[in-house]
């Protein structure tokens, strides 16, 4: 449905944010994972038709949306990482304006806005100026605007930033439900945001797609390569300099460390079941080391 073909984005000054990336998205949710500065937001902006790629093509149902962005914009719900609002408009007025900008009829917009305000728990605050909203409430307004036009493609960039834990879970569930019959692309650097809801995970680093697959496939790739061990405090630095450490917990008897290694790092290390955070760190480690990642 939505396809990127060899997309590259080079900013003025030569910064190559996206480097020849190809990605094909169909119905369902893809979790886009990557560290800060990996090129996720640039990629999201290109897919949302906000930024034009330096080279490459973006196709939506066969239409090149770089040349004809409106083909996608009419059915797109986009929640950028950072956005603002008109501070003196109420949530209802703001959404009503955006609905008009989407080309939605008045009656349809009214009904939709009511439903969306309920969905994001802002009905009671709908008459207050947005300038008096908290960060989390504004985020929910952003979520509501992304769903205004009953989008077929939803692109959300770090959507849970600023949400409290309950709202985060609720939003993840919402995305999960939406993904049943839509294309949903969720970008984040928080592994827990995607591991519970995304059946398809893409990991990007340094502007390139480093790994893609289901969580099971990705976990299988590092099966037997994650270890836990108890290390005296004095040896922590030595371990850190030799292995990728995914977690450390100080205990009275030493530091319990979780490390990635193809072989047991110390004789008494215990193999443990890998999780997505281990996969993520493994991929980042390999990509920063310049290792070929396509396995």
């Amino acid at each position, binding site marked *: 449905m939505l396809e990127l073909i060899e997309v590259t984005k080079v900013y003025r000054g030569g910064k190559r944010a996206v480097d020849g990336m190809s990605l094909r998205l169909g119905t369902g949710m893809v979790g886009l994972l990557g560290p800060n500065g990996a090129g996720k937001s640039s990629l999201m902006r290109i897919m949302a038709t906000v930024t034009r790629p330096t080279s490459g093509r973006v196709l939506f149902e066969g239409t090149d949306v770089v040349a004809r962005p409106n083909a996608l914009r009419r059915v797109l719900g986009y929640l*950028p990482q950072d956005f603002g609002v008109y501070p003196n408009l109420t949530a209802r007025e703001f959404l009503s304006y955006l609905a008009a900008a989407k080309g939605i*009829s008045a009656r349809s917009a009214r009904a939709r806005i009511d439903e969306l305000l309920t969905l994001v728990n802002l009905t009671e605050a709908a008459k207050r100026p947005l300038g008096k909203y*908290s960060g989390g409430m504004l985020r929910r307004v952003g979520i509501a605007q992304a769903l205004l036009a009953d989008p077929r493609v939803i692109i959300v960039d770090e959507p849970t930033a600023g949400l409290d834990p309950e709202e985060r879970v609720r939003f993840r569930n919402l995305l999960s439900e939406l993904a049943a019959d839509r294309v949903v692309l969720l970008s984040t650097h928080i592994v827990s945001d995607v591991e519970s809801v995304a059946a398809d995970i893409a990991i990007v680093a340094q502007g390139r797609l480093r790994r893609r697959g289901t969580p099971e496939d990705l976990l299988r790739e590092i099966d037997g390569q994650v270890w836990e061990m108890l290390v005296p405090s004095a040896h922590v630095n030595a371990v850190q*300099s030799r292995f990728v450490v995914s977690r450390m917990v100080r205990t009275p008897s030493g530091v319990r460390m979780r490390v990635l290694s193809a072989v047991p790092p110390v004789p008494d290390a215990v193999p443990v079941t890998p999780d997505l955070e281990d996969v993520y760190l493994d991929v980042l480690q390999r990509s920063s080391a310049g290792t070929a990642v396509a396995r």
Partner: protein
Amino acid sequence: MTSTVHIRPVRVRTVSVRAVGGLALGDFRDRVRRPAYVVILLAAVALGYFATPGVDAHWVIMQVGEYRGVYNSAYVGMVTALASALWLTLGGFYVVRNAIARDESTRVGLALAATPLRTPVYLAAKFLSNVMVLGSMVGALAVTALVMQLARGESTVVDPVALLSPFVLIAMPLVTATAGAALFFELVPGLRTGVGNIVWFFCWSVFALLGQSPKFPLGGIGVHAVVRSLVSEMEAQGLDLTSGDFSLGLTYLEDPLKTFVWNGFTPSADFVVSRLGLVGLAVVLALLPALWFGRFDPARTLRIWPGTPAPGDAPATEAAPASLVRLEHSPDYVADAPRLPRSAVVAGGSFARLLWGELRILVQGVRPWWWGGAVFIAATSTLAPATNITRVMLPVAWLWPVLIWSRLGTQRHEHGVSALLGAYPTARQRLIAEWLSGFALTAAVGIVPLLKMMSISDWAGVAAWTAGAVFIPSLALLLGSLSRTHRLFQAVYLPVWYGAVNGLPVLDFMGVIRVDGEPAGLPLAVVVGLAAVMVAAVFLADALGRRVRD
């Protein structure tokens, strides 16, 4: 490999006055690395060029009767310095008007507020940065003066002292005072907003007019001593002094001026003291707000003109936390599948609502006093005699919304909404709706003068009104879109309006000037044509902006 980061402990000591230079330099660097700075410098160079017109030019910046000085170092330096003193005190104010606002919008101010930096030190650094920005413009003008002296070729002997001393003695003290005033205006509730920009324009108008008098406090512009020197030199050369007075400002000439040689003047001690007094006044203006400056504490922010509602007004609190309330009663709430909207989305008929939305955005947060003023102007126009309609009431009506017009083209960037709208269709329709909202406001505030003109069958006036109503939002949208700030429109529109009201035909876009009852300002076709070009430029800039963004 994961590595341990060792953070070396830092010995924190109280930031002293020595920090002023460092802070000011950082601030100055940030400002000069913005593309707008190049435009500002080019404007300064253009000002230097206009200050020394060629022998066949029909304009002049400074003259004594039918005479001007030969373009030697002393005269070129003086005329360029006086031109900069006159115009940089106006334009420069708007250039450096955002020293504190930038720290507020970038939130650097919050970080600085949490440091041991003392408020006077912070303000002194901001003041110094303002002086450096305006001083760099004066520097550009001094270089331009040298180039122009050589280019005009009337005297090729360069006397650096004669060339530069007017910049040091006249231009720099005045831009220093402007730098201090700009900072003061930023820190006074009520003046920190667009109202301050308007107030400054009128302060400057008074200063430009009365500041040439020797009786003006602190010597005003400082031009009086220069005039005395010019006149005594002319008397010594036996030139006719009865043909006219001294004039400083852009003046149209029928015939080229005669020339005489002037080799500069030696400033008296009083003159130097008065210039130092200006600098002292600037320092006082810059540092006085330390008494009340709230160091970016939102709870201490006063808001007179609409903008972002200050968090201090009412603390932002979560809306009725339905999720949390339900959570208490239903532990598995968060696992509930949310109920998706089921209503169908139907397209169509959205332009009128888009226009309504743009109107709402344009006038969002406008205070009741503003509406009250608009109603008062309309009521007064109703009662005013027909002869005063175009001369007085229409200009007043079309000055009142200047701060609202200046929002056109800026708000989606200012509030960060462009991040959302970039992925929306109908970009062109939104621009049309935005322009129409500006036109609607212009028409609404000028409706009574229009009806009055119609009632007396002043159809030429009606046509001029229509051209003006088209011109204003076009100018505002263009300048707002290009600069993304309110200030450029305010800085451009006020002098244009002032020129029109004071009978300058070349600036009369609304039919103020009448000869035998007919508008004698800019021809209708020119005003409408300019508006069309400006609107086209807005669309072009928007399309280019979307193409070359990032």
